[in-house]
């Protein structure tokens, strides 16, 4: 089973609206990262939040982390058509050694 699981699997909104994506995980973490992927190729790092942080901002991105609920959310404010992409959360898991595990992703479609 996935260490990180995103919700919803797909999201369609109008340009200018806010988009919220959620990530749940199972084991204790050191940090949680969000990545973006366009067109099924390389991922781009968006933001990293450490386990002792509760909220972090970067431009139109806002990430929250609730370690008691083992969940995180990514909020994109004032969305643009160019935000259309897949978004993945990634957490560190100890599964025979520390490594980063990605969730299945949320596919966001922003309509112009």
């Amino acid at each position, binding site marked *: 089973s996935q260490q990180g699981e995103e919700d919803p699997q797909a999201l369609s909104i109008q340009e200018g609206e806010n988009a919220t994506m959620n990530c749940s995980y199972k084991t204790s973490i050191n940090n949680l990262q969000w990545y973006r992927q366009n067109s099924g190729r*390389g991922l781009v790092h968006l933001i990293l939040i450490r386990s002792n942080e509760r909220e972090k901002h970067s431009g139109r991105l806002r990430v929250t982390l609730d370690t008691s609920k083992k969940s995180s959310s990514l909020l994109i404010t004032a969305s643009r058509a160019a935000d259309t992409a897949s978004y993945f959360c990634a957490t560190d898991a100890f599964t025979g*050694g520390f490594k980063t595990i990605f969730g299945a992703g949320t596919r966001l479609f922003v309509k112009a």
Partner: protein
Amino acid sequence: GAGVSQSPSNKVTEKGKDVELRCDPISGHTALYWYRQSLGQGLEFLIYFQGNSAPDKSGLPSDRFSAERTGGSVSTLTIQRTQQEDSAVYLCASIWGSSYNEQFFGPGTRLTVL
């Protein structure tokens, strides 16, 4: 500076043939991951190299898959006797320092097994 590069960008092969995929990480990055991504799916962890430590091979799906990292830099992922289910995009990422840090991804190699 140069990012992570992967070659080839696309590879079409026949079932049963062997393929080699190459990853050139960012210079100085000590850790390197290989992932596999099927169409519309998430990233499936394959293997993780950290410095001179023994690699974590726990994600390799079968003994047809192997990877090496020469001189702590370039890595090759080899798939022997390819099967149609091996068709996917293979992504490489390098990291400075520990596995907890930001990963820098290459553009991937799209493998199609006919």
